[in-house]
């Protein structure tokens, strides 16, 4: 993975010193909160319902065991002994004190990490497929391109005050695990018959108050022009995106109002100018330097395991269940990628304790080349595990409650922090996720139900992507009481769709039963081999509506 050179370190050191000075000026009263706000946001510091929150960037969701140990330390030293993984592959700490944040940033910088641009109206962390570099269906590894974007977008002076935040996602596979159709820019790596690499570029996707599926703005962009084309999109948006209404300021509204054809022409014209100027695209030699960091590792690990995978799989049911649900194929024979679920039954989605992080860092060193991935579904992945090591890994993970065999199943729920933490929320999300998880705690029943994506947002801002959940839940305020709208039929992958509301909302007491009713109905009416979304796509809303509101 990418390792900083002195230039990268220098940028971080200066950034940390700059923010330390700004925090001091705020504490001394030289800066008002209004003046300080954009400065703290540019460094990932939010002011939430009860405390400050620090969001740390994990570029394209890849990090090392040492970086994980540092998260554990920060959680223990400055927080309440845990961290929280987000839907954008980042980690956030919910209880730091403002005065401590410069020290935390210094700790992070010591392991090549930062919180730059994890908030504010700027280009945020570029997210990627969590199986990047190991997926069997991959055209090319998206991470070097994400790193190129990371460097270009870091402290970009022109795009620091865009109309609204700006999110880019990239995948190297046609099967989309990075939800690229719901990002401001989505990139899919393509290879021509002649072997040339480029990108299908989507623009104007997003969730929030107005969920929109992104449109293709360029069918094939040659890889060498990645940055110039992104710059053209960003400049056109910065100049012409709406600034009169915060809720209409995302690029999706600009594209919607102008039409994709017109927007494409505007971008094309700007792009030609940028190409002539020729300052933006990275020279091939510079690009090669970045690619060097992403060369595939030597897969020459000699497992020490004394248990045979096949025997253990036959004899140990819980292990077999975990393998069936949480293991992914790997492009190297004999290896596998493993999802580590951060959704223990009855737990808080995405949370992990400092003790778990420390132990997991050790396991990553032993079993997975010291590397960990975070996913947009708030789980973690070990991407380089030898299959013969899996029994031992499973036992070690189970000992720290990180072997829940529920990846992609009913209890693998995405939830935003909701009213427990967030100043914007109308309703709580976390307790609801916990109740659903407890209701469906039987792993055999969960497997019977099959793949099911439940997503719970505590307000219309849709941080948990409820519009694209097979079952989506939206917290609303109904005359001062928490209530929940139910949506069915959303999907965030290459068959993107936006869920539809079932009808009137449900009270806190009713919503769990309503979800169970939907699931039981699906089990009754599904055809062989169907998962929930297939049944919904075949029969639509009616059968579910009938039983929900009879």
């Amino acid at each position, binding site marked *: 993975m990418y390792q900083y050179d002195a230039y990268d370190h220098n940028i971080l050191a200066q950034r940390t010193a*700059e923010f330390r000075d700004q925090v001091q000026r705020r504490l001394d009263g030289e800066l008002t909160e209004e003046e300080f706000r954009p400065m703290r946001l540019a460094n990932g510091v939010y002011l939430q319902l009860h405390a400050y929150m620090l969001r740390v960037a994990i570029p394209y969701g890849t990090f090392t065991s040492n970086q994980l140990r540092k998260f554990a330390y920060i959680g223990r030293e400055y927080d309440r002994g845990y961290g929280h993984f987000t839907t954008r592959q980042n980690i956030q700490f919910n209880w730091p004190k403002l005065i401590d944040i410069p020290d935390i940033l210094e700790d992070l910088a010591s392991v090549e990490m930062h919180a730059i641009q994890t908030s504010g109206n700027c280009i945020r962390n570029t997210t990627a497929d969590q199986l990047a570099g190991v997926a069997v269906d991959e055209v090319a590894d998206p991470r070097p391109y994400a790193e190129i974007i990371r460097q270009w977008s870091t402290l970009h*002076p022109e795009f620091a005050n865009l109309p609204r935040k700006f999110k880019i996602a990239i995948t190297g596979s046609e099967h989309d695990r990075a939800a690229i159709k719901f990002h401001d820019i989505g990139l899919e790596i393509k290879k021509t018959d002649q072997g040339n690499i480029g990108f299908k570029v989507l623009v104007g996707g997003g969730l929030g108050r107005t969920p929109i599926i992104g449109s293709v703005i360029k069918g094939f962009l040659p890889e060498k022009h990645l940055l110039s084309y992104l710059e053209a999109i960003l400049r056109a948006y*910065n100049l012409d995106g709406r600034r009169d209404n915060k809720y209409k300021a995302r690029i999706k509204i600009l594209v919607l109002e102008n039409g994709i054809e017109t927007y494409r022409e505007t971008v094309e014209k700007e792009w030609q100018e940028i190409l002539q100027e020729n300052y*933006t695209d990275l020279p091939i030699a510079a690009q090669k330097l970045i690619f*060097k960091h*992403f060369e595939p590792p030597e897969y020459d690990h000699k497992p020490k395991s004394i248990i045979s995978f096949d025997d253990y799989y036959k004899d140990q049911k819980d292990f077999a269940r975990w393998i069936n649900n949480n293991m992914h194929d790997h492009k190297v024979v004999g290896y596998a990628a493993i999802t580590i679920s951060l959704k223990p039954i009855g737990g808080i989605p995405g949370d992990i304790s400092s003790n778990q992080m420390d132990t997991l860092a050790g396991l990553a060193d032993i079993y997975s080349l010291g590397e960990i991935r975070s996913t947009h579904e708030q789980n973690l992945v070990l991407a380089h595990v030898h299959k013969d090591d899996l029994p031992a890994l499973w036992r070690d993970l189970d000992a720290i409650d990180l072997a829940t065999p529920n990846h992609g199943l009913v209890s693998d729920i995405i939830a935003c922090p909701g009213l427990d933490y967030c100043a914007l929320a109308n309703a709580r999300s976390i307790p609801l996720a916990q109740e659903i998880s407890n209701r469906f705690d039987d792993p055999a029943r969960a497997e019977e139900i099959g793949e099911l994506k439940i997503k719970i947002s505590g307000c219309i801002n849709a941080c948990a992507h409820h519009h694209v959940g097979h079952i989506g839940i939206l917290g609303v305020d109904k005359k001062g009481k928490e209530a929940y709208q139910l949506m069915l039929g959303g999907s965030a992958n290459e068959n993107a769709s936006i869920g539809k509301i079932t009808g009137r909302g449900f009270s806190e007491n009713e919503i769990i039963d309503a979800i169970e009713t939907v699931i039981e109905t699906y089990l009754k009416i599904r055809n062989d081999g169907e998962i929930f979304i297939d049944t919904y796509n075949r029969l639509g809303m009616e059968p579910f509506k009938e039983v929900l509101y009879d």
Partner: protein
Amino acid sequence: MINLKIIDLLPADALKSENTNLLENISPKILSAPKIILNFPTFMDGRAFSQARRLKRAGFKGDLIASGDIGADQARQYALVGFSSLHFDRPHDPKVIKNNLMQYPVSYQKFNADSKVIYENRLNKKTAQLLSGGGSFSG
């Protein structure tokens, strides 16, 4: 260090460009103006950053003035996109501006023939010794 003038009064003879002007087609009259003022009506409104880039790209050689709700902590940002003068609406600390202009002597982005960009340092034999890493999983 980058040079940037701080001015107390907006020059009366300067051309004012509206904040909504996309500057797609820039007339010779604009290009030959000695001074142009671009406005930041609120701190959060970053349109003038891109307007400045377009003016510089088109060949504007005069004094490019950033005015309005601008911040001392962002001085370097204004300079990088092409501004040569700053006119503040609110009080500002010259020390903060000076410190800010000395920050980040090289950046990840290149804006003109003279700007110092990290990737060029990485490719230049004399400055490439600052490189480290470069091997996957090489701890």
